[in-house]
């Protein structure tokens, strides 16, 4: 018994470590370099493009699929707007905007400042919190010419099969508006799966803060049968609002992963859950 548990924990940790290294699985690169230009990985879908006005640059925006309500990883290829050759030196930032006429709001986003040298892509992420036409704002400091500028792109955001973002008010935490987004599992399978969420707190309509002082407990169950599973690992804080744990699926079908959010051992909320079907 004790052996089994320790083994399970070791397994869980090793899975975690392993996947932590290969998280950027979407950036698969073929080594075919044509015309001296690094190709765009074939598993990425082009979302759109925009000129970065003032920076003599053009941004082409990619993601693994069309934008959806949830955590969207964004890849940006920058081009010299005159020669249309790839730019490889610069700083990049992104933000989102939902303009509903009477009011506007943003949503949480992330960027990695350094370009990935293998794919020559800048990487970021946007968490869209509702459906509709979202504007993606991109700023770029083109080191080649040392000029900065902005561009934007409007794209439709659709609902995924089951909700991957939860926006709710936590009364016990100064009535803050909390956004919990599930990143993984994206391709759920039998057995152990990484369970990764981000938690953000809304500071105001335009600003979101990554939450690092919550603790999270998960409880997966199959609602139609009422059973759960053993050997789950509660997500723990990694960085930048990300919490990583492991969920164990003993069967395929519909699983409901219930969340309990705590701060200083006080339960803040236990009303939220994510449905995962595979």
């Amino acid at each position, binding site marked *: 018994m004790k*052996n089994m*548990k320790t083994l399970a924990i070791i397994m869980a940790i090793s899975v975690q470590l392993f996947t932590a290294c290969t998280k950027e699985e979407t950036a698969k690169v073929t080594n075919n370099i044509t015309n001296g230009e690094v190709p765009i990985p074939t598993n990425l879908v082009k979302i759109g493009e925009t000129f970065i006005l003032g920076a003599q640059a053009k941004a082409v925006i990619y993601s693994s699929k069309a934008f959806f309500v949830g955590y969207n990883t964004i890849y940006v290829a920058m081009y010299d707007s005159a020669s249309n050759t790839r730019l490889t030196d610069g700083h990049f930032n992104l933000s989102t905007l939902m303009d509903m006429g009477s009011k506007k709001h943003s949503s949480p986003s992330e960027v990695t400042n350094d370009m990935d040298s293998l794919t020559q892509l800048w990487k970021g992420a946007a968490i869209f919190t509702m459906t509709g036409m979202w504007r993606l704002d991109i700023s770029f400091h083109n080191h080649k010419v040392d000029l900065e500028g902005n561009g934007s792109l409007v794209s439709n955001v659709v609902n995924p099969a089951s909700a991957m973002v939860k926006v709710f008010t936590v009364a016990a935490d100064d009535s803050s508006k909390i956004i919990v987004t599930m990143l993984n599992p994206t391709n759920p399978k039998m057995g152990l799966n990484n369970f990764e969420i981000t938690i953000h707190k809304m500071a105001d309509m335009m600003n979101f803060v990554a939450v690092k002082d919550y603790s999270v407990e998960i409880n997966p169950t199959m609602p139609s049968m009422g059973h759960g599973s053993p050997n789950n690992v509660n997500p723990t804080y990694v960085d930048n609002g990300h919490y990583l744990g492991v969920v164990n699926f003993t*069967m*395929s*079908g519909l699983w409901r992963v219930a969340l309990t959010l705590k701060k200083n051992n006080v339960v803040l909320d236990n009303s939220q859950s994510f449905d995962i079907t595979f």
Partner: protein
Amino acid sequence: MKLKNTLTIIVVLLIVNNLKSQQKLDSTVKDIQLKEVLICHDDKNQQNEAFNFYRSSKINSTEDILSRIEGVNLIKRGAFGLEPTLRTYNAGQINIMVNGMKMYGACTDKMDPVSAYIEPSNLDKLQVNQGASAAANGSTIGGNLNFQLKEAVFNTKNLPSVTAFLQYSSVNKGFNNGVSLNLNKNKIAFRLAAVYKNVGNYTDGGGLEVKYTQYEKVNLQLNTVIKLGNNNKLIADIIYDKGVNIGYAALPMDVSSATGKIAALTHQVYFKKFLNALMETKLYYNEVVHYMDDTRRPETPMHMDMPGWSNTVGFYSKINLEKKKHIFETRLDAHKAYTRADMTMYPKNEKEMYMQTLPGNNLFNSGLSITYNYKINKTYGFGSMVRSDFYEQKAIDNIGILQWEGFGFDVSKQTQNWLHNGSFWVKRNAKNLNSKLVLAFGARIPTSNERMGFYLFNRADGYDYIGNLNLKPEQALQVDFINNFTIKKIVFTTTFFYHHIYNYIYAYLLPPAYSAMTIGARGVKTYQNIEYAKLMGFESTIGFKLHNKISFKANLRYTYGLLNTGLYMQQVPPFKIINTIRFQNKLYQIQIEHFFAHSQNLINQNFGEVNTAGWHSFNARFAFTKSIKKSIFQLNTAIENLFDLNYREHLDWGNIPQPGLNFIIGINYYFN
């Protein structure tokens, strides 16, 4: 005391017997059953005698015969596929074989022991060897049960020989029909046999219908013997057995279909001049496909499919040598088995749910055994058997492997075991008393279910079971002492046994976090090796014949099992007696049977056992035979459970009563 009652009955029967013997009866009695010549050397004559005795009682099923063999008990979950146990050993503790072949049932709930795919009308003999000393055919601690099937014979001149039977039983409105045909020409002989059974729900003592006890099955067999020389032959067997709509009253699900297919090719050669050498080599393949079915159960909360598969390919080769005082036998065998079981559940408006209750896995086994007997003189002899086995097993199906990863087990890794069995015996054959003392050591690997079963629901205790890949083999040290007294025409055989089982595989409860899967299950259990368990008891047979017309056989058995924790072992049958008295002449046969089981209060509550009351039940059989030229007609009638007693045996699961008053009528036809 119930025992006293029983003794009284025995005494009464003895008196009846004596009265009958006063009558002067014709002394030439011909047993009506067709006996065929066996090529195998077999020192189990007594057992065969018992088998033939009970088989000639014209009873229905393999199980009915099994239950009468000493030391054999049956776990009952429905009216079909009763699981044989030897003393208390069951499942992976014993080897159940068909013609020496390894075969695995495909059901994770043990709904289909191998015996379910065999029909008694095709059985030539039943070899029951108790304990670890029976490991010559495969490592075991509990013993070996081999169903030896009939072979085509070269006894018909021009016409085929035919046997046919039709039988109806009232308790389940059941039909049991069969036909077999023996053909031979020159150097080739065929035996073709077909059995069809269609049985409804039976009624219990008192006349209430016991739901989900119905079944329907067909069994086809073709046996071909080709003479390659005088003492050299090739035997081919093909068996197809299909059961449909099989009820399992004691389980939450039934079986929609269970299909067994067996194919084997055997070569036998005998060299009289060279040490009486008998060599036999067999190549075989068998497969089972098993579908459980819950669609007939109104209480089912959610429909599910639970199919299971098993297929086994293997061979064995054995040589017997004899010279004066020495008998030497060696057997080399190997087999590879694939087993898998799935579960798919269908919730409303949701994606179906799937898992492998037994991850698809391969088991490989190879073993070598040597048996040696030495006759010191007329009175004394000794012998020994040693066997070594290599096993390896691993899951090969990715889904099942991932499921187990979630529990910290890598079931895709080979689990390897070397097992050793050995036994030593001394014999003393005196005028009236033959004695044999057997010391044995045995081991068995954990079963696939015990290793990697995944949330298998056990109706007996209401828990889901998951396997434990780290289980060690179960081992046993055993002493068996067999005595056989012959006083005039009375034969009295008794066996005492004491078995000490190490690393006994026993279930324990997991914490609630393991979350039972089955709706309504009480929790989750897994297995561990506990330090030891003890099993002891005795079996006795008393038999006698008077003027060859009256024969009496009583068999008694008692088993007592205790775990190191002081708990009683589970599924231990109580003290039981079966008395059979038969009067027989050329024309007719009358037989009265009496069964007695003592109450069983030495129970294991962890396994969900409850006390079982003692009971007596009686059967009466009558057979009438008429010969017309080359044809023999036989009318069989029987009244089973004469007093319509409502009772259950201790090994009957789920408090399901046994059948009540039953009238059976049947006709057998032989043509030669």
